[in-house]
């Protein structure tokens, strides 16, 4: 039975159900319980934004607080995964991943290949991404392109509660390392989510909206921005098809290509910085594979090539909004050769 719950609750429920189903699943990170080693209440935090709250009581001994040392506990998670557990480690902000790139890029992502397929690394690294929280340049980046670039990693970026639960369960059951990127501006979003467990396969895009005039590919929070833009465009007689890839690695390019073959126009909306981004990658792939179908230049709507600004007004300008998407769509639709 589906009922309406938040993105945060959907993630919590996925962790809870997988811990109940599989004793190998363990959860840890900074303040994932909250209170270890100090007097007072245990389970005080449940992570910095409360996503893991309540799991400690249900699964004692399997939810742990870690020291503020990402390189140590991400390394521990990867080691535990190769040793037979299925750890879900929370690395608070994706911006902090830099201190454990060796563990992630050079160890976790490589084991399956360098040990001839004999080693699997079923680790999930949950992390928050994206701008909008007034958290300045070191807590607001996207960085999904960095992880998408590395063969051996899988990258999921759910845009709604239903996808968050199904993709996280898929991530936990997957034998490869997964970067599970939770957009920090979506935790309060609510939507219908089944109570039962379910798996959304990686590499299967969601067709969010059907339309014949333009294909909009949008990632994470930008799916909502694209939906807002599409509603306004419909009023102007332009029907946009919206595709949410859900996972950037693997990427469901087939669904995107099929759509572009119908619409002849592509707009990619991604809040990452523009250089070597998801937008440029998807744009290049479509140009290569479906050039003959294109009736207008591919439009990319991204943040500018700057750090995310701290001033509210500048941060708002940095993040692609519905008006920028509408402008890009109109540029594509009105294009004359």
């Amino acid at each position, binding site marked *: *039975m589906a009922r309406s719950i938040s993105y945060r609750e959907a993630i919590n429920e996925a962790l809870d159900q997988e811990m109940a189903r599989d004793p190998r699943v363990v959860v840890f990170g900074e303040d994932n319980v909250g209170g270890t080693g100090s007097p007072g209440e245990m389970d005080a935090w449940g992570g910095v934004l409360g996503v893991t709250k309540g799991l400690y009581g249900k699964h004692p001994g399997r939810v742990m607080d870690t020291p503020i040392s990402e390189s140590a506990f991400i390394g521990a998670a990867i080691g535990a995964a190769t040793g037979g557990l299925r750890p879900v480690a929370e690395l608070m902000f994706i911006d902090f991943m830099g201190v454990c790139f060796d563990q992630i890029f050079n160890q976790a992502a490589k084991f399956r290949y360098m040990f001839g397929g004999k080693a699997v690394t079923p680790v999930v690294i949950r992390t928050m991404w994206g701008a909008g929280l007034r958290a300045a340049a070191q807590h607001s980046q996207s960085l999904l392109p960095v992880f998408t670039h590395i063969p051996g990693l899988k990258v999921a970026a759910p845009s709604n509660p239903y996808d968050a639960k*199904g993709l996280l369960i898929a991530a936990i059951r997957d034998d490869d390392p997964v970067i599970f990127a939770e957009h920090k501006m979506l935790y309060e979003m609510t939507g219908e989510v*089944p109570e*039962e467990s*379910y*798996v959304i*396969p990686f590499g299967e895009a969601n*067709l969010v909206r*059907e339309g014949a005039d333009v294909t909009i590919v949008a990632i994470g929070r930008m799916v909502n921005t694209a939906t807002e833009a599409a509603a306004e465009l419909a009023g102007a007689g332009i029907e946009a098809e919206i595709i949410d890839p859900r996972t950037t690695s693997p990427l469901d390019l087939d*669904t995107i290509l099929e759509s572009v073959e119908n619409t002849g126009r592509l707009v990619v909306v991604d809040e990452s910085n523009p250089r070597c981004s998801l937008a440029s990658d998807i744009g290049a792939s479509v140009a290569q594979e479906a050039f003959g179908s294109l009736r207008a230049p591919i439009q990319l709507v991204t943040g500018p090539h700057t750090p995310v600004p701290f001033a509210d007004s500048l941060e708002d300008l940095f993040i692609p909004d519905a008006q920028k998407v509408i402008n890009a769509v109109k540029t594509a639709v009105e294009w004359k050769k």
Partner: protein
Amino acid sequence: MADERIQKVTMPKWGLSMKTGKVIEWFVAEGDTIVKGDDLADIETEKIAGTLESPREGLLRRIVAETGVELPVGATLAVVAPSDVADEEIESVVAEALAQLASGELGGDDEPAPRIAEIDGRSISYITLGEADGDPVVLVHGFGGDKNSWLFVQQPLSESHTVHALDLPGHGQSGKDVGDGSLDTLASTVLGFLDEVGAGRAHLVGHSLGGAVVAAVAARAPDRVASLTLLAPAGFGQDADAEYLRGFAAASSRRELKPLLGRLFADESQVTRQLVDDLLKYKRLDGVAEALRVLLGTLLDGDRQAIDTPALLAGVPAPVIVVWGGADRILPVPEGVKLSRVDAGHMLHMEAAGDVLRHIQSAVG
């Protein structure tokens, strides 16, 4: 107090989740005389488009709902009244209806919620509409379907009967364990359900696999069955689109599933984005893939149908009617069987709901 000869046509509720709908096109005009069953309008919901057949008869005095405007379930679409009812009275009924719409009190959450019965150790989800005495009607869906597939049928039937629609094991919101998945196991579930709802006897209506299931119920417990209505039932003849059945069970993505679903309908435009999404959401649930795999073994022997439904019906005293969509591509219309054809594909109770409803009504009285 308004003249009681003034009758309203309201936005129907097609299925549990329907909250609003839009009139896409009116087929009648003010001043037309309409009879029950006339096509009044095409209505589109988030999930499905369908034709509203008139639940009223008389002179169509006013069309209230403009096309393309989203309206809640229960909103007044049109007003029917004899010609001698004064225009002012019609206007006051329309004004009242518009005030009710503006108040936002329509489309509230007074809808019946699905209930759960524990049968043979499985949780079976069902929904009951109607409160009439007498033998109830039980609707049993087909392979991969669920109780919501009766969206066009259950509500109108509930005006004269208590109507239960259940999710078979492995389907909808029921438990996903199907055991051996045999027809006997599925029939036990339906018999257990009759006990659960206190029905000594019931009118059984089954679609596709559900048709074979209700036939098996009648074979096992003939005294529990008041009538059987079989809609494109499994087990008549051996032909079947085995590729569809296996493909449906195996498909895990929109790109695999959507082309297959087109084969269910005569008019493939019935396969909306939402229909595909809903089926994918069902198929992703833990246990569903295994349930469908097991049930395939009940339906198919190689590429042929494995069930023999006429054999099950041989000793059944209850009246049996068989209805088939003339354009069925999943289970082709069998030769030499007494049946009624309707203009539809395999999903006849969705595609030709009005005709199917009349056949069911003729069976259940």
